[in-house]
């Protein structure tokens, strides 16, 4: 990773610290700055309210020309998060062909937060959960809250 990219990550970290989106905490290791650990509270008003989710953001060596890789380390019942031990997330500006170098990590964090409030059904990675969200919203909410209780307390 070039010195310029490191500098940019440092700057983005400073920016995130200056205006951290509400309910978020970033653990940053100066030795390994390509891996951020984000603690995110479930946004109020969403089914995930009250949960604490651990996320991992990994910056590839080609950053900012390739998108950062976001994964949920805490299990979450969400149509856009893969339901395995990776918990990966790949949509919107995180897609390699959608990513633009001027995008910022703060925008990524905001995107995640807004997705927790309103999942993106058309771009789902877990079709069964997306279906449930579309057709049986009550059941979805029940399952999501159940998972929050089970994994995200």
């Amino acid at each position, binding site marked *: 990773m070039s010195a*310029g990219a490191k*500098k940019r990550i440092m700057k983005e970290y400073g920016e995130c610290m200056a205006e951290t989106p509400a309910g978020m905490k970033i653990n940053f290791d100066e030795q390994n700055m390509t891996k951020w650990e984000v603690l995110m509270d479930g946004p109020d008003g969403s089914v995930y309210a009250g949960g604490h989710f651990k996320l991992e953001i990994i910056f590839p060596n*080609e950053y900012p*020309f390739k998108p950062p890789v976001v994964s949920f380390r805490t299990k979450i019942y969400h149509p856009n998060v893969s339901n395995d031990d990776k918990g990966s997330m790949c949509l919107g500006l995180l897609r390699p062909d959608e990513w*633009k*170098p*001027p995008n910022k990590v703060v925008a990524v964090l905001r995107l995640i937060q807004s997705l927790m409030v309103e999942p993106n059904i058309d771009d789902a990675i877990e079709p069964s959960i997306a279906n449930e969200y579309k057709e049986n919203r009550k059941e979805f909410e029940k399952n999501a809250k*159940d998972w929050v209780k089970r994994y995200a*307390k």
Partner: protein
Amino acid sequence: MSSPEPIPPPNDRRSSRASSAGMDTADGILPVGGPPNDPSPLQIRASNSLNSKNRRSTIAKQPPDLHLLEYVSQPDSNLVCLICHSPFDRPVQLFCGHFFCRECLDHAWCAQQEGRKTCPTCRSRVDPEKDVRPVPKIIETMLDELVVKCPNAKSGCGWVEQRVNVNDHVMLYCEYTLVECAQHDCRLHISQKEFHKGCLHYTVSCEDCHTSMMKKDLEDHQRTACANRSTNCLHCDASLLRLDLKTHIKDACGKVITPCQGTIVGCTFTAERAQTNLHEKSCPMATMAPHFRDQQARIERNEARLEPLTRKVGILEDGLSSITNMLYPANDSASTFPVTNPWIPTSPTPSPSNLVPTPTSASRPPRSHPYPKTHRSPFTNPSHPFDSQVHHLLTLHESLRDEVNRIANALTDLEGRTNMMVMNESQRTKDDMLHTNAAINGMRHQLHWLISATLQQRNSTRTAANAASGSTSGARQGGSAARQGPSAGFHAPLRRLSDSTRQDTKL
């Protein structure tokens, strides 16, 4: 490790630096410096670099990288490249109006295919030949006027000036810029300031703390880091070892501003330590403070002890509710047992654990559990036992066990039935086999008979050939054949006969 003289004689230098190379000849020719036949990564890099040809010119200077400069004030966000997030370095403008550093743009484009270059911001097609234009002069001027620190600021350079001058400063004037060592076979770098002192790349040990380091670092170490050097307290001018400085400032220094001990109770007095000590003698809150601290510690201990207990109670209550559920399973599920609800007013929807039906009406359970409700309310603990994984696992385990029991019963049932079926089937198969055996036996008999008949026929043809001797034997054989059945000409009716006798056995 204790070498008393700060500058060891040349012999010591060589032995300390080049002992591994095993070159003890030519002390006079190579008085100082590293072993040249043992290339370090640094040397390899140096020989690969562009400067390798004029290595002896003592210049190892690299022009400063503008991306890595530290700016004195936050630069205007309009002057910042969106890719590297630093103020532009040699900016260019695309026809779509977006600006980037030349280098960042090249980086972004090297991943894209030839002829399909796009603007990193708006993704409009760009022709690298025609659409890349220089930026307006005013932008360049604004960039040049940004105030930066010298890139060698960490080494001690205090130069702060406009960015346009940084290249000249680093390349010509800065004392802290690294150059190659004066010693012609030493390939390490040294700051320009110490260049004239000759090669300082040999190991010495600090006379105060006995740490070994390079000579060029010794002065710096003694000035700022060595723990066994005496230094002055910033506040009270007392002279003491650097080692003790921290504890001195924290506990002893009379000039350090400290708050009164009573702050935890509410005293707002803050002054230098000497005055604070005087104040504390008369301050009632300071005298109370130790007691409060004790109480605080005790409360914390108790709370820590309470935590596992509440968890335990939760688990037990959950067990109780599942037992209740087992005892009265037929109640309607609409009146749910509020196991979790009393403590989470924010979660109105039922969790699986409170789908447990109650033994009585819906109004009763809250009254039947008044104790935990009132008892738990002061502790609005977000992670209480009912939501714990243990609780969930226990209920899961319980239901799984039921399931397993049911499956085991079904299995034994199925096994018995299968056994019966197998036995019936095998009985029938056995019967069939007996029948088949009988049939095979019959066929064997028939075959015997047929063979003998054929033999007989052959014999009779032979007897017909020699009629004289054959008349008596033919009569005898004909008789025997008549006893067994008709001769070869009458095979078919006999076979049908035997078939018809077996008709009842075949099914």
